[in-house]
């Protein structure tokens, strides 16, 4: 269908009935838009459009049920727009959504008034939870999270190479002010890089900083997320208690460096090297369907399996120790067969030596990968002999042919990326069934499929099956760039077909002109409170002015 000219599709849609998407409302152009979100802010049914500009101006737009321009609430302002992280969250369950602002002043909160305006003054919630990172512009971050599952929102702020967790306590002082107490300083792997070469006109000075989020997951099956800390080779687990408290000292910790395979390394093909490092590989997944994740650690040729229990993870009594035939580059736990228990996949990547790569300057060269799969035997153990085996080769074009025109290669993969379209889901037509909207590959239209039950979500199992097919079921084990691009394109289309049921779209909306605007983001949401979902489209001006405009697209 994708290959049909657009005119035929439009004709088909026009003939098929009254299904139509219209622009219900548009905001005025907003200068220097930094970010936006949909959130319930004015107390009325439905969500409002919240926009923050680079200068820290806070805008709220409400939309009526009928075609009309949005109501623009009075603007608010953030004191330090270049050093702030934002979150729109409730303070506690059943309370109103407000704006958390983390900055060098501490964590503040602005409450919206009855019109959704943030005109009022900010209240300092946690003065000592200072966020000193320069964000350059107001930026949303996961800073307001109910870490301990007690129904009250806690705050997380970065400090150096750590995240500080400030838990909201029941106020004990006079009045009803909330209080925050620091319960943990969690080391995280902050990555930063800088380009400092400045001698040439073509040099660019660059700075990149990534602060990871707090890793929360239930590791003891009590239904409450626990705190996971990753610091280099060390892993630590803080188990959240029934009363919501988080111990400052981890309940369980392990240094992966203690896992060493002392047997001699596996043999390698002459002139080839093993890709990977001597560091242990850590994977976590529920192996025995008891609702508690188990741990798999691989190093060298050895694999240890540790059973997790209600007491949390443990790394002292392995339920299974495997010795693979080859050194392990990567380990994954995933479903390789049709039962419910995930199996173990060990991968060994062998890359050519420097000499072979040099020969590969002018001629193609190969990377080889060996994959072996061990079936989950159902007793928190994997079989000791592999059930699945394969050897895959990937032929890489000569390096100089890539260097001659790297843009050509990049463009091919960019084309593939456009086929992986993410759906926006919502009940757009109000019939009670979930519909999906997808932006077309060429970014000219927004297509909507009405819910029919045929659509299915793409889940982790689908990814497992895909990997299984590629590694063990496809008889053609020889890959090259052309085959990879073709396969990825086909895979992307299949995923879209899974979502749409392979049907024609029920409605199509032409996006704004690509010569003037770029569709930057979209979100489904019931902006007028009528029980049906609309789609909010956010466009950026292409002239680099930082202008943005929002269209609300609705089912007519």
């Amino acid at each position, binding site marked *: 269908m994708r290959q049909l000219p657009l005119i035929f599709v439009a004709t088909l849609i026009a003939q098929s009935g009254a299904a139509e998407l219209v622009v219900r409302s548009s905001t005025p152009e907003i200068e220097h838009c930094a970010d936006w*979100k949909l959130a319930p802010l004015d107390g009325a049914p439905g969500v409002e459009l919240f926009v923050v500009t*680079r200068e820290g101006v806070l805008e709220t737009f409400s939309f009526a049920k009928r075609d009309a321009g949005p109501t623009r609430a009075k603007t608010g302002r953030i004191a330090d727009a*270049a050093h702030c*992280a934002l979150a729109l969250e409730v303070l506690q369950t059943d309370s109103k959504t407000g704006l958390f602002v983390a900055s060098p002043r501490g964590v503040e909160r602005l409450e919206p008034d009855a019109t959704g305006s943030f005109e009022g003054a900010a209240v300092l919630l946690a003065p000592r939870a200072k966020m*000193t990172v*320069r964000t*350059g512009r107001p*930026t949303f971050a*996961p*800073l307001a999270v109910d870490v301990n599952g007690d129904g009250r929102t806690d705050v997380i702020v*970065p400090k*150096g190479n750590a995240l500080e967790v400030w838990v909201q306590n029941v106020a004990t002082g006079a009045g009803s002010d909330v209080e925050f107490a620091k319960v943990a300083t969690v080391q995280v792997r902050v*990555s930063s*890089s*800088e*380009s*400092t070469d400045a001698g*040439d*006109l*073509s*040099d*660019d*000075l*660059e*700075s*990149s*900083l*990534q*602060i*990871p*989020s707090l890793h929360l997951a239930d590791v003891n099956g009590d239904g409450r997320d626990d705190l996971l800390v990753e610091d280099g080779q060390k892993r630590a687990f803080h188990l959240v208690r029934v009363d919501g408290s988080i111990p400052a000292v981890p309940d369980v910790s392990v240094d992966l460096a203690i896992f060493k395979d002392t047997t001699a390394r596996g043999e390698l093909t002459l002139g080839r090297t093993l890709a990977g490092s001597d560091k242990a590989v850590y994977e976590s997944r529920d192996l025995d369907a008891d609702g508690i994740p188990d741990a798999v650690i691989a190093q060298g040729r050895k694999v240890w399996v540790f059973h997790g229990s209600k007491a949390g993870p443990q790394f002292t009594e392995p339920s299974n120790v495997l010795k693979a035939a080859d050194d392990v580059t990567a380990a994954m736990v995933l479903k390789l067969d049709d039962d419910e228990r995930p199996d173990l996949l060990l991968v060994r990547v062998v890359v050519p030596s*420097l*000499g*072979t790569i*040099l020969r*590969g*300057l*002018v*001629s193609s060269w190969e990377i080889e990968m060996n994959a072996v799969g061990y079936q989950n035997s159902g007793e928190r153990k994997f079989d000791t002999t592999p059930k699945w085996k394969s050897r895959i080769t990937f032929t890489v074009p000569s390096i*100089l042919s890539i*260097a*001659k*025109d*790297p*843009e050509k290669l*990049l463009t091919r993969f*960019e084309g593939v990326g*456009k086929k*992986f379209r*993410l*759906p*926006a889901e919502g009940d757009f037509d109000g019939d009670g069934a979930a519909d999906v909207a997808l*932006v077309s590959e060429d*970014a000219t239209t927004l297509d909507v499929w009405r819910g029919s039950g045929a659509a299915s979500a793409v889940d982790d199992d689908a990814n497992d099956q895909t990997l299984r097919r590629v590694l063990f079921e496809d008889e053609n084990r020889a890959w090259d760039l052309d085959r990879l691009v073709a396969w990825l394109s086909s895979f992307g289309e299949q995923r879209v077909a899974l979502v749409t049921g392979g049907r024609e779209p029920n409605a199509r909306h032409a996006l704004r002109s690509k010569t003037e605007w770029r*569709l*930057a*983001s*979209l979100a489904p949401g019931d902006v007028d409170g009528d029980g049906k979902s609309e789609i909010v489209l956010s466009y950026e001006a292409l002239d*680099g002015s*930082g202008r943005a405009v929002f269209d609300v697209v609705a089912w007519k």
Partner: protein
Amino acid sequence: MIAAILCMAATQSLANVSSIVMPEGGRVMDASTIDVDGDGSSDMLIASVNGTTRTISIHLRRATGAAFTSTADASLDLQQDVVCFAAGDVHADLGREIVLFNANGAFVWRWRESEESRRVAKLAACELLWQWPDRLTAFAWQSAITDVDGDGLDDLTVPEPNRLRVLFQRRGEDGKCSFDVQQVLVPGDSDSGGRALDFDRAAEVRQAGTKRRTRMAVTSGGVQIDGDRDGVGPYLWIQENVPAPQIVDFDGDGDRDVLFLENDALVVFTQSSAGVFANEPLRLKSPVPVTRARELDVSYLAKSLDLDGDQRVDCVFSAGDKRSKDVRTQVLVFLSKFVKTGEAALFGNEGTPSQLLLLDGFARPIGFEDVDGDGKPDFVAGAVKPDLIDGLRAAASERIDAELYVYKNTGVGFSKRPDLVHKISIQAGGLDLVARFLGDVTGDGVADFFERADKSLLKVHMVRRTRDGLTVVEKPIFEWPLEADARLLLPRRLGAGSWDVFAIEKEAVRCASFR
């Protein structure tokens, strides 16, 4: 054997070697060379780490005996927030002080001051581009110190996100320095994101439970990928940049101007009078616009400098020739003096270069260095030619053959053909290649050739004038064994006050002094 020893003695006599060895447990992380004490000779600044303590130490060059010793003349354990450092005369103390930068300001370390409370003081507030301190090191950033307004005092030029902050030094009658006079130069729109070129991204779907799309960005440092793609996404991912400012006299009026290369334009802030830049910059349409393909082009480079000695800036671009079937590189030379009256400065109205050189293979300018000693910068380029690579031989030897060219400066451009061609066999695999005509160490008026084509060896070759041009004498006149992972710290040019070449190793800095 005797011959070998004699040869070794002969080559080593060209330079005296001395070492600065770190205290036990200490590791050298970065180094810089500049005259700190004002005696006219470059000294050594070393950033090191020992455990969790980061230190900057000053080693002054001795006039006699070993040029450097392991004992530091001054040192400072750094605060956790220090990002980088430079040396500049920013205080009434004798010589230069050390300027320390953190995310929010510049501070002076008065290394001669003995009273602890007076050693470090704040100079000015600024928003340094690189806001995150490395736990192990602080890097040298000497570009932050320049006399911009020509008053003989060191000013601060601080790169900030999307802009450059120039902080002019003023001295009161009491000798007290201040940096209150500032000007912020913004080359482009703050939303343009500098020259980092992104992928053509699909629209982001914002919906709870939607799988996060991995984010990627192409930068001059390579391709960056969202490092937390398996989790909920990073807490913060901040990318900031600014085109590297070039502080040169653009129009020949004796004032230093500031140039930025944007994607499609050269942006020039002219200094109309000392310390005053024009509010509106000149925007000259670039004849070689920056696209993503250019950013990925191994041959792409742009350089601004005065090539013909008319005190005005000229410009050289190199880029792969995409229209050619064969791999070749174009070098476009733009001389200010050839622009017709009334046309746009430097590039003219049409953007036609005053000279076009074509080089076979993947070529790239290596430098603009006065090789023949006539005082004008000559053009030095290196090239790898695919058709000359013998894959099997390269695989067996683990070396790649490259060619080095020198085109002499003729005053109206460069020679049409190279005046020097030299073959280099480069050891593959992570080599920090050095191929520089660094300065005249033999006294014949011609700059000699410093070559590190092997990880473990620096060689100096004499360069001679010939009837046809210049030639590199094959047999080296100096050889210096290096640790395989040593980094070389070379002066801009060997000459008066800077006759030292440094090898930065894990636990020591070694110096070869050629005078």
